[in-house]
């Protein structure tokens, strides 16, 4: 005898059985549909939400560290509490030599300035940086080029202007090769830049005028003073790996008390991003938990319905057993129903979830930043349907085994 699962009539019969109880089938299928759709939407939604948030940091190094000076808060070696001090370019050179975990680094100096071209003027931040700044902020070069180390070494009077400055001063014309005035000093415009990230140091690049740090120091007569020193740690390292060296170098060079943690302000952005990562992990886990809860509700629904089906059809199973059905035939028949219901409704649910995610992804699309990532990878969709298939089958197995164990004579006599 053959197993009924391979017989088309068996499947037609299952379809007919499901069609006979339309309301019940619909409600059970909806439970499964909603369970898989919720899991898919929560999974893809959490991913998309994370993508949207991460887009705000696009191009911004998340393993960023930095150090800047504050007034002393502890009197030390003749320096009073409240006295000023500044990081110097010599400090920066020593730190670069001694710090164990620096990948890209730059000194940064900021000044409020007025930029002018012809009759057009615009208030802006003048920002002095070194060539490796581009490795830290990943600016979007709209036109021309960015500041490089040669510009810094040769103290060139070149400027990269933010796209908003370019629009204000030049309208739709190209600023490249033209001289702009920054607080009365002329700089050759070599590039126009923007930034993807909503996060920045020293103001948004779109509104800044970036010039070589050495040029800025000379132009503003700030000697060797440096406002900030920022850097990224190489993969596998944390920015904080450099903290003790930096504090030691700066405290020694500027007679700062080793106990004065405020005077030398150290920052590690990676700690903030770790917190954000944990937040996203929490959101993903919550989404999975809620989604799995919906899925389990659907699975329990399938199990319940299968119990009812077995109870309702006990007599029929008895008749089938009397005329030659083997216990396995009955099990396969019951399981086939739950499998068909689970597969069809589960697949539709995942498709619906993917459709909703697709709509959300297109609504949140940004031409510059790209897609947020509201999507359901095919593999994940298969895993969801597969999980539901396994759990749905497991839920149908217990009633199916119960059906298998019914004695034909008891089943025939069942009222």
């Amino acid at each position, binding site marked *: *005898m*053959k197993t*009924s699962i391979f*017989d*088309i*009539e068996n499947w037609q*019969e299952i379809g*007919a*059985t499901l069609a*006979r109880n339309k309301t019940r089938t619909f409600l059970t299928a909806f439970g499964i549909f909603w369970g898989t759709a919720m899991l898919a939407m929560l999974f893809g939604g959490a991913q998309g939400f994370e993508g949207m948030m991460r887009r705000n940091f696009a191009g911004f190094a998340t393993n960023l560290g930095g150090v800047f000076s504050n007034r002393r808060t502890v009197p030390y070696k003749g320096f009073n509490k409240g006295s000023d001090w500044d990081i110097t370019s010599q400090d920066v050179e020593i730190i670069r030599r001694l710090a164990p975990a620096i990948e890209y680094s730059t000194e940064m100096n900021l000044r409020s300035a007025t930029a002018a071209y012809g009759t057009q003027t615009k208030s802006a931040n003048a920002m002095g940086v070194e060539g490796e700044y581009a490795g830290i902020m990943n600016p979007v070069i709209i036109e021309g080029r960015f500041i490089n180390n040669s510009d810094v070494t040769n103290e060139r009077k070149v400027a990269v202007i933010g796209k908003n400055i370019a629009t204000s001063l030049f309208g739709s014309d190209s600023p490249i090769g033209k001289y702009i005035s920054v607080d009365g000093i002329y700089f050759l415009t070599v590039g126009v830049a923007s930034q993807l990230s909503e996060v920045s140091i020293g103001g948004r690049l779109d509104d800044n005028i970036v010039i070589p740090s050495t040029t800025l120091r000379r132009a503003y007569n700030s000697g060797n003073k440096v406002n900030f020193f920022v850097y990224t740690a190489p993969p596998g390292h944390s920015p904080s790996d450099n903290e003790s060296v930096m504090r030691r170098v700066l405290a020694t060079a500027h007679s700062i008390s080793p106990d004065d943690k405020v005077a030398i302000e150290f920052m590690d952005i990676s700690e903030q991003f770790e917190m954000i990562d944990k937040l996203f992990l929490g959101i993903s886990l919550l989404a999975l938990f809620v989604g799995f809860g919906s899925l389990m509700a659907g699975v329990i629904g399938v199990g319940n319905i299968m119990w009812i089906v077995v109870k309702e059809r006990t*007599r*029929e199973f008895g*008749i*089938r*057993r*009397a*005329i*030659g*059905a*083997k*216990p*396995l*035939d009955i099990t396969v028949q019951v399981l086939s129903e739950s499998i068909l219901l689970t597969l069809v409704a589960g697949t539709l649910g995942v498709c619906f979830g993917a459709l909703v995610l697709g709509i959300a992804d297109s609504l949140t699309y940004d031409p510059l930043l790209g897609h947020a990532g509201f999507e359901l990878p095919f593999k994940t969709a298969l895993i969801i349907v597969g999980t539901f298939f396994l759990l749905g089958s497991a839920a149908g197995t217990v009633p199916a085994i119960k059906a298998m164990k019914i*004695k*034909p*004579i008891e089943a*025939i006599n069942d009222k």
Partner: protein
Amino acid sequence: MIGHLNEETVISLRDINKTYPGAVPLHVLKDISLDIRKGELVSIMGASGSGKSTLLNILGILDNYDSGTYMLDGTAIRDLSENRAAELRNRMIGFVFQSFNLISYKNALENVALPLFYQGIGRKKRNRLAMEQLERMGLADRAHHLPGELSGGQKQRVAIARAIVTNPSLILADEPTGALDSITSGEVMGVFRELNESGMTIVIVTHDPGVGASTNRIIRIADGRIEGSSDTPDFKKEQ
């Protein structure tokens, strides 16, 4: 007839006992010994609770017995696995029940074809064989009707067609006319007689003397024992 096993014997029971366990165990069959030969049309009669349905269930391999021996067409029926029992029921026995026991959402043709489905016979062939039996029962025009669209007599004829479609060694009928009026009962008994005349062995459990009278042999059972068989001289016609 209570005799010994020979080639013509389809059913041979020897000292069959059956007790239903419980707070007070119920000994429903007591040392039942019985032979039914090939081609017989036999009725088993008895009052309610006499054990006749239990005997039919044992004959139909639907229930087990506690002791004794049961040979069905030369095959020992004892401690069978569920699968083996299902196979033997499918190939050797055709059942006809009082309440027809047709599957309500299958049409007449599908109901008749169902035992063949469990034999693994392909759809075309089983539909052809099922249609042949429906034609034999005069129900070809009702082949695609659901049981709910058939009269009681038609339902029972569909059930008989289902019972004979596998060409079994034995037809077991449990009160086959119990749910029918007298005219339809007569028609159904006519069908059984025709089948018997074509060589089928038929055992009918009934409490209806009219049904018993239209069989070739009556086996009377009372209080779990065989009280007598109409082919023996000491058999009392009315008890």
